[in-house]
């Protein structure tokens, strides 16, 4: 029988996260240096870092809260266009980034409102429509976005007056990916994570237990969209070019697939998903048909054969769930 003493021990799960986190951070920060001789590979790694950040945000919503927001890329786009516009107007990138990310958060919270009424699949359909409308808006408001042509030659940001080197910006991207994962870990281990998981599992029961389902869904959207927005702001100057296609429904599906394929509702599954799939989509960029067929197949495989994803495959039973539990199991057994 579990004793009170045993449950008061430091959570084995938080220790269990420490080592992978240290390894991940070490690899993330070492990669830009290791690949500094090959700009192309370093670039693929940088794009992967942005996708790790995105996948972590999508994981908060899809993996932990049970919402599937297919307008995720659109939110990243809102932030990207805003940051590009503001920097073109003379703003510092470092000031534009939080403003753009906040705009994405607010937009995401508002566009997430239908999820308060629509359950599961119906919200996903609705978010698909929202994504389409956002993409159309990027095309339509060409005064701000330059329409289908897109905006090119976006410069890398400067720091203290000098433009950042490729290596320095790669390190910024690595830091954002690591911080994103750490923030997700902190959320998942907190009571906020416990509430979100309860909402994912059974939102009516969660409400009956006193959890403000509406409020916490909105908080999840705010934070998840912040991940989308920061990623979008970092993406634009890195690629140097953005267009409505950079943030369309296929990109949303792509990020979703990283989470689902890697293992939703686990910290590391979606990171693995991003590491496997982000370079793939980049390397196959020239081969549209191959890429689309491959993605279609992957989506089917994930849905039919491995709903738990890669990480879910070997840890089906022991789902990563919130905070260390401060609940004593038995009083009798301590006596």
């Amino acid at each position, binding site marked *: *029988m*579990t004793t*009170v003493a045993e*449950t008061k021990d430091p959570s084995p799960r938080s220790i269990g996260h420490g080592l992978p986190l240290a390894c991940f951070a070490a690899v993330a920060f070492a990669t830009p240096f290791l690949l500094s001789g090959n700009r192309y590979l370093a670039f693929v790694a940088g794009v992967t870092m942005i996708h790790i950040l995105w996948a972590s945000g999508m994981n908060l919503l899809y993996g932990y809260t049970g919402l599937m927001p297919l307008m995720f890329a659109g939110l990243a786009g809102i932030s990207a266009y805003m940051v590009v516009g503001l920097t073109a107007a003379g703003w510092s990138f470092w000031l534009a980034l939080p403003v753009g990310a906040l705009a994405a958060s607010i937009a995401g919270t508002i566009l997430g409102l239908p999820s308060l009424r629509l359950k599961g699949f119906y919200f996903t359909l609705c978010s698909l429509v929202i994504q389409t409308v956002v993409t159309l808006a990027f095309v339509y408001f060409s005064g701000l976005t330059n329409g289908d042509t897109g905006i090119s030659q976006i410069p890398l940001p400067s720091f203290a007056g000098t433009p950042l080197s490729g290596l320095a910006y790669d390190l910024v991207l690595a830091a954002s990916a690591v911080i994103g994962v750490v923030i997700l870990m902190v959320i998942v281990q907190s*009571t906020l994570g*416990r*509430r979100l*998981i*309860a909402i994912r*599992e*059974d939102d*009516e*029961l*969660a*409400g*009956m*237990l*006193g*959890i*403000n*389902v*509406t409020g916490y869904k909105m908080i999840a959207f705010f934070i998840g969209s912040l991940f989308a927005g920061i990623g979008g702001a970092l993406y634009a100057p890195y690629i140097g070019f953005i267009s409505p296609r950079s943030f369309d429904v296929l990109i949303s599906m792509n990020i979703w697939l990283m989470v689902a394929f890697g293992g939703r509702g686990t910290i590391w599954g979606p990171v693995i998903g991003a590491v496997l799939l982000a370079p793939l989509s980049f390397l196959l960029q020239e081969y549209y048909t191959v890429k689309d067929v491959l993605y279609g197949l992957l989506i089917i495989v994930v849905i039919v054969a491995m709903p738990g994803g890669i990480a879910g495959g070997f840890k089906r*039973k022991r*789902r990563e*769930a*919130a*905070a260390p*539990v*401060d*609940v*004593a*199991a*038995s*009083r*009798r*057994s*301590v006596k």
Partner: protein
Amino acid sequence: MKDILLDVKAVSKRFGGVAALKGIDLIQHRGETLGMIGPNGSGKTTFVNVISGHTKPNAGSVSFDGHSLSGSNPFQIAKSGLTRTYQAVRVFGELTVRENVATALVDARDAASPDAVAEIADWLRISHRFDARAGSLTLMEQRQVELLMRLVQKPKLMMLDEPVGGLSSAEVRIMIGVLSELKGRCTIFVIEHTMKVIRELADKVVVLMAGEKLAEGPPAQILSDQRVIDQYLGTADA
């Protein structure tokens, strides 16, 4: 016993053409165990759904411990100390029992201390299952977990929707024992088809029939009421 805990006035609810509840009045005092019986589809679950905020009534008002619940969300009602169970047992099946309990503590009105949680779990004889996935438990164990999750919130009123539904007769006996001790922990409202439960637990019984209150009174009187026998007990396995 003169302290009114739940005061329901003229509550009506219709689903399209079906009038599930027709102007129900009901008063439950603090500490009084109230039983509700009635044939299938008579509106018992709908009644609990209205009180717990899951269903909005078309008319009428509910006040709980002196405060109106009209327009409140389920989570606000829960935080005011009114809790319920579901006719079909409902736990977070993918989470462990320990995680289920921890979830119940997060936004509890008055969260029990770890020692108090341990005491309740021991009393319910569910301590040894704390690390099991709740979905893997037997029905009886899941019912015990349901009770545990409610009790760690220290509710004032617990509404039980058929708490012995689907249990074996041995389990029913154990559950009746648990529920009669539960009376010492909070006020109970219980829906049951099993008359044994009503006879042994209830101080007062309300009979629903096609959304209307047919009779109300002490169990001995209600269970021998000719109208109740004719319209309900005659057909039920009492």
